[in-house]
């Protein structure tokens, strides 16, 4: 019998270590404790009701039933994402982008949006731990005072701090203050993720200006601190409006799919070992010399087309190298940009915003490990990082850590590092704490808390102050002190209020640096060819879990990964050709060996990936992530080395299989055309879709006829819409076992299709919400009338009336309906219910559900419009998916109004309905994907 549900038991009854009998407890002690517990249990009933005072005067800012929005900032690899947080009567429920913040522009990616779930995660660390046992902050404070007495006389010699790189002025000031107090202490910084200032400055791209882009392993659309801004700008150059587009052309050179690669007009899949040779060939072709013979046909064609395009006059060009790339390749890209005259036009350099290169910093994790090995460290404070998990395998940090007498760890979870230190201190969630952050462009945001800490937690700024031995100051006062000093003028409070309201600190922007080095003789540096390797390992952060820090987030675990639709597990991604050679299929377990480091991992075949490489994502194999994230997938950090190189990869089939859960099983369009594409040159020849004829009269339209248009030319497939929908509409997480059974609950899904010949694959993404058909097949077959048509054209689902025959789903040609096969709700007393949107029903077992076009938002706008006695304005209603989309690919509105944005989008000649031949007349339509081949 299969397991009944994979929803993990979250009962505190089975807490870590609860089953261990304390060694010093005897019978008398036990009876004493039991007696005291019983007595206290009785006393619990005597709790004074003084905390239960209702409002006698309603606070001005709170209207019961109406949400309030507060501006704040969400850390993304240390950088700020400006956010607006929706709160219902003081309870934060949803994170949205802040339109006034340049790095958000009103959009929010999936990871940012999922942070709201982490706030209510029952597995969060809730109290300090001393050697794994619950302790209190005063206990830690006294322990630290003792340590302080030892350290202070020697100027902090032997004290080491380990943090993640930060952009927060307050945190940085706190660190510097701590280093002032202990001048001989050393501060190390560790992140497994990329540095963005490898050359001492940050490249910043202007994708709105670039006409020809070469992306080398280019992750500028995914997982870049400025990805939202870049996506918006990039999409602006792909959007066909009124039959016209100022299209850019994107060349992608990459080993494995990136979101940019999927948007590329021309893509070459090449393993990392081939990169230097291909880039050298680009330089050769640029200097009009014959291409070397070593290039194969596809490489040659790519290089020729690219250089021809780069050479064409009047084009602004841009070369982007992925931030995880080796320094040589990044330097090559930088030089190419200089040679092509891109600097100052499509690329600008900013002074480093993050603290990676802070002059007071003593190095990275490897340097710390070496210092420990030399016996130089006697006290170590790990603040915010989880190096035991994220450290490269050959650093062997856990073993080193054991040699340090006094260790402490500050973190949101009692994670792998917490288990290896003497003191673990719980850190506040960013929605609970005051701080400040800077965006990639240097703009500063005050991180404003939405709620008091739910548990006995403190922020990093507060802990730094505690460690420095200064009198305690609240986070609020700390941040204000930083900015008061910075502003230096009067009317600080006026500024402060304005900053909090807008979510942006005005006038704070890092100037663009101009690091233009002297012109070199050579146009671009010659890259040393790599030794031919049969197989290279490419280690990448997980698209959602990053370095594993979000592993305990159910929304992210169950959010299908781009290109694989895998959920709950990571896999070793290989090309189908390699799979055929090694006789490997999806889910086959292989022994992965790389320079003596070994893990076991399941493989997954991805069409369009370069043959000579295997991709592994970090974030799996966590052992102490929490009930959701522990034991998912395999730990790719075990393959990581300090140098970052990973040659000589060897795969050996074990003959065993594991079941990988994917929400999509068919990635070929199979001769059908759910995603329609057209080449830019055919734009003028497109003819609008003719409405299908019918024997029946058309439905009469009301004042409003809601409709949606999704632009496949700009959709990059980032899944922000899926996360937004999940947060807005109380969509449950069902667990791996249920996904394996085909029961994922997302109301909008992002379909992935690979098209084209092997070696020249294209990847298409297609978000699919409910089509809200005018002739809805689902409505006809429901025996109880639980799904009905509204006068405004919504295909409505009446949960109360649904008996669960599921015929509607069978008859839905788009398969967008979702069924509550089990009771997927959280337990009635779960803290997770605090995240629920009170305007959306939480569905019970046995009822069907589906996309509603965010009917609660329509109705809120309607009641506001009726109150003001005016019609609903175009753009007043934004569905959750539309709001989150950084590419502005989703447009929603009233199709009965020909002037509305959505009606205009639908009037584009590239507009088409999915399965138009069925004459379901979908209100959700698509704009065909524009491709701009040379």
């Amino acid at each position, binding site marked *: *019998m*299969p397991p*009944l*549900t994979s929803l993990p038991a979250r009962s505190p009854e089975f807490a870590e270590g609860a089953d261990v009998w304390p060694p010093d407890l005897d019978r008398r002690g036990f009876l004493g404790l039991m007696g005291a517990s019983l007595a206290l249990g009785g006393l619990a009933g005597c709790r004074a009701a003084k905390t239960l005072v209702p409002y006698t005067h309603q606070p001005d800012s709170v209207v019961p039933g109406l949400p309030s929005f507060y501006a704040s900032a969400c850390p993304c690899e240390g950088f700020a994402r400006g956010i607006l947080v929706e709160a219902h009567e003081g309870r934060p429920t949803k994170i949205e982008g802040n339109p006034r913040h340049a790095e958000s522009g009103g959009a929010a990616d999936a990871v940012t949006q999922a942070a709201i779930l982490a706030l209510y995660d029952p597995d969060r660390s809730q109290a300090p731990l001393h050697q794994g046992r619950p302790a209190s902050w005063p206990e830690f404070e006294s322990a630290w005072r003792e340590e302080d007495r030892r350290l202070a006389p020697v100027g902090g010699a032997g004290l080491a701090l380990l943090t993640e790189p930060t952009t927060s002025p307050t945190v940085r000031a706190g660190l510097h203050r701590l280093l002032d107090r202990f001048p001989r202490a050393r501060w190390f910084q560790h992140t497994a993720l990329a540095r963005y200032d490898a050359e001492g400055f940050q490249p910043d791209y202007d994708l709105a200006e670039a006409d020809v882009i070469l992306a080398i392993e280019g992750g500028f659309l995914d997982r870049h601190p400025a990805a939202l801004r870049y996506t918006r700008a990039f999409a602006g150059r792909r959007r066909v409006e009124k039959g016209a587009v100022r299209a850019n052309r994107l060349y992608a050179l990459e080993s494995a799919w990136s979101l940019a690669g999927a948007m590329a007009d021309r893509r070459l899949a090449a393993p990392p070992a081939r990169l230097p040779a291909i880039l050298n060939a680009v330089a050769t072709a640029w200097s009009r010399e014959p291409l070397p013979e070593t290039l194969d046909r596809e490489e040659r064609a790519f290089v020729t087309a690219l250089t021809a395009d780069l050479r064409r006059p009047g084009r602004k060009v841009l070369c982007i190298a992925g931030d995880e790339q080796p320094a040589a390749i990044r330097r090559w890209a930088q030089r190419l940009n200089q040679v092509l005259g891109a600097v100052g036009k499509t690329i600008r350099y900013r002074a480093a915003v993050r603290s990676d290169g802070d002059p007071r910093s003593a190095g990275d994790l490897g340097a710390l490990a070496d210092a420990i090995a030399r016996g130089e460290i006697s006290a170590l404070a790990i603040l915010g990082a989880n190096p035991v998990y994220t450290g490269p395998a050959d650093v062997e940090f856990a073993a080193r850590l054991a040699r340090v007498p006094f260790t402490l760890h500050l973190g949101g979870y009692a994670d792998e590092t917490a288990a290896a230190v003497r003191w673990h201190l719980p850190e506040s969630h960013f929605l609970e704490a005051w701080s400040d952050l800077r965006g990639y462009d240097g703009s500063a945001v005050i991180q404003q808390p939405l709620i008091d800490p739910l548990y006995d937690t403190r922020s990093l700024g507060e802990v730094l102050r505690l460690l420095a031995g200064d009198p305690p100051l609240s986070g609020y006062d700390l941040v204000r002190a930083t900015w008061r000093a910075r502003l230096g003028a009067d009317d600080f409070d006026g500024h402060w209020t304005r900053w909090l309201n807008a979510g942006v600190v005005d006038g704070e922007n890092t100037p663009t640096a101009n690091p233009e080095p002297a012109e070199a003789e050579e146009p671009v540096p010659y890259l040393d060819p790599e030794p031919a390797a049969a197989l290279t390992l490419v280690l990448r952060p997980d698209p959602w879990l990053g370095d594993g820090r979000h592993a305990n987030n159910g929304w992210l675990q169950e959010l299908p990964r781009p290109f694989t639709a895998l959920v709950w597990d990571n896999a070793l991604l290989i090309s189908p050709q390699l799979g055929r050679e090694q006789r490997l299929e999806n889910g086959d377990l292989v022994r992965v060996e790389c320079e003596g480091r070994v893990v076991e991992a399941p493989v997954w075949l991805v069409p369009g990936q370069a043959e000579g490489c295997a991709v592994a994502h970090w974030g799996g194999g966590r052992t102490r992530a929490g009930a959701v994230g522990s034991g998912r997938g395999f730990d790719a950090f075990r393959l990581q080395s300090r140098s970052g190189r990973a040659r000589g990869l060897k795969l050996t089939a074990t003959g065993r299989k594991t079941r990988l859960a994917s929400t*999509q*099983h*068919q*990635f*070929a*369009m*199979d*001769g*059908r055309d*759910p995603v329609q594409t057209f080449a830019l040159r055919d734009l003028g020849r497109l003819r609008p879709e003719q409405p299908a004829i019918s024997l029946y009269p058309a439905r009469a339209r009301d004042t409003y006829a809601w409709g949606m248009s999704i632009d496949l030319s700009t959709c990059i497939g980032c899944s922000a819409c899926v996360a937004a929908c999940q947060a807005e509409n109380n969509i449950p997480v069902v667990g791996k076992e*249920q996904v394996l*059974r*085909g*029961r994922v609950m997302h109301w909008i*899904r992002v*379909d*992935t*299709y690979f098209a084209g010949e092997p070696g020249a694959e294209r990847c298409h993404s*297609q978000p*699919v919400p409910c089509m809200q058909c005018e002739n809805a*097949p689902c409505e*006809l*077959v*429901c*025996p*109880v*009338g639980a799904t009905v048509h509204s006068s405004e054209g919504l295909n409505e689902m009446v949960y109360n*009336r*649904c*008996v*669960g*025959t*599921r*015929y509607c*789903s*069978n*008859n839905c*040609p*788009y*398969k967008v*309906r*979702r*069924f*509550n*096969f*089990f*009771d997927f709700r959280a337990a009635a007393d779960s803290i997770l219910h605090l995240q629920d949107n009170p305007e959306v029903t939480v569905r*019970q*077992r*046995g*009822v*069907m559900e589906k996309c509603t076009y965010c009917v609660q938002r329509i109705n809120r706008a309607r009641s506001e419009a009726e109150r003001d006695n005016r019609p609903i304005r175009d753009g007043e209603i934004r569905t959750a998916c539309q709001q989150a989309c950084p590419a502005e690919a989703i447009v929603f509105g009233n199709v009965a109004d020909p002037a509305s944005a959505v009606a205009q989008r639908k009037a584009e000649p590239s507009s088409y309905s*999915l*399965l138009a031949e*069925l004459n379901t007349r979908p209100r959700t339509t698509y704009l065909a994907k524009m491709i701009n081949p040379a």
Partner: protein
Amino acid sequence: MSAHPPSPEAIVDPTATLTSVTETVSGPILHPPWPRLWLAGFAGAFVVTLGLFAAIGWLFIRGVGIWGINIPVAWGFAIVNFVWWIGIGHAGTFISAILLLLHQTWRTSINRFTEAMTLFAVACAALYPVLHLGRPIYAYWLLPYPDTMGLWPQFRSPLVWDVFAVSTYATVSLVYWYVGLLPDLATMRDRAASTVGRRGYGILALGWRGDARHWAHHEKLYLILAGLATPLVVSVHSIVGMDFAIAILPGWHSTIFPPYFVGGAIFSGFAMVLTLVIPVRALFRMEGLITLRHLELMALVVLTTGWIVTYGYFSEFFTAWWSGDEFERFVQANRALGPYAPAFWLMLTCNVLIPNLFWSRRLRRSVPVLFGVAILVNVGMWLERFVIVVTSLHRDFVPSSWGMYIPTFWDWSTFIGTIGFFLALLFLFLRLLPAISMSEMRGLVIKAKESGE
């Protein structure tokens, strides 16, 4: 089917007398000890029935997620089994009503038994539409009852038609069966030795005294009910066919479905009658009443309806090809070559090839062959419903939403559970009620004697 029996054999053992008929039929019920085989069979079926109750209990506790259904395959075993059982339930009414109207006297010895089989099959079938609901507690919302909010069922949905079709069929079949039982219940009352038996059969017999007026009313009513039941045989499975045909799903959306489903239902129903009658006549030594001739005639019905089903398959394939519709063509190709191809080919073997053995007179008069073929046809018809329901759903229009349906332990246990439930009811019926109509058999014996003299 010919109005004249194809063989000159008698349909009643020539040595049978009025007394011997009554004794053969009522004797095993009224005179213990009950055969060991009966006890063992009933015990086995009852245990399986308890398994069904456990499966249903767990279903109510946990929800339909315990089955293998998903999105896209939101219907699985429950609907497959529903259609299968309803199909089986067709033979009874067909035999007793249509053959009565057509004066096929050979039906007499098997009609009671097949009607009972019909009722039990419909009982099994009727469980599924309720069990498969996400919220079975609200199954009554499919009924048109006056409620304070003025809510009615959605009459365009074939599932509502289904409720009417199946409930009407069940009601008429039950009344028809019961009316036919009345004279025999009176016989049982008169012959029962125990007080409980006398009282029990007495109450059920509704005061039948064999009065001439009773007989006159009885025969009129019986004929009227036969007339009422006849269109139902066609309507029920037509509507079940429309459950699918109304959908826009390729593989379901097909005008051939109503007649093709009726043909298939009679096909499977007769196969089930054969499956049950062969052991029962051996067990209760009724070879004199249910003769080889009966079995042969039923084999011919199986052969005929088998060809109707074959035509249905051909028509589906041909229409898909002729339509030129890529989705329709894909569904047919996917059935033959996709992941469920074994089910498809086994279905064709069982339903198209195997029944053709009955062209041979020798084979259709061989009891082991009859039994084997009947079992295979039952399997084949179950697979047909599986193929229709699952292969159409699992790969429909948009490739990204394709999936697989893998039945779980609970799917199987509910299915096998209803087989146990069906057999348990049948065993009880054999034990408590006359399995062959004594009154009608007596009439046949008299007629045979008269024509003999």
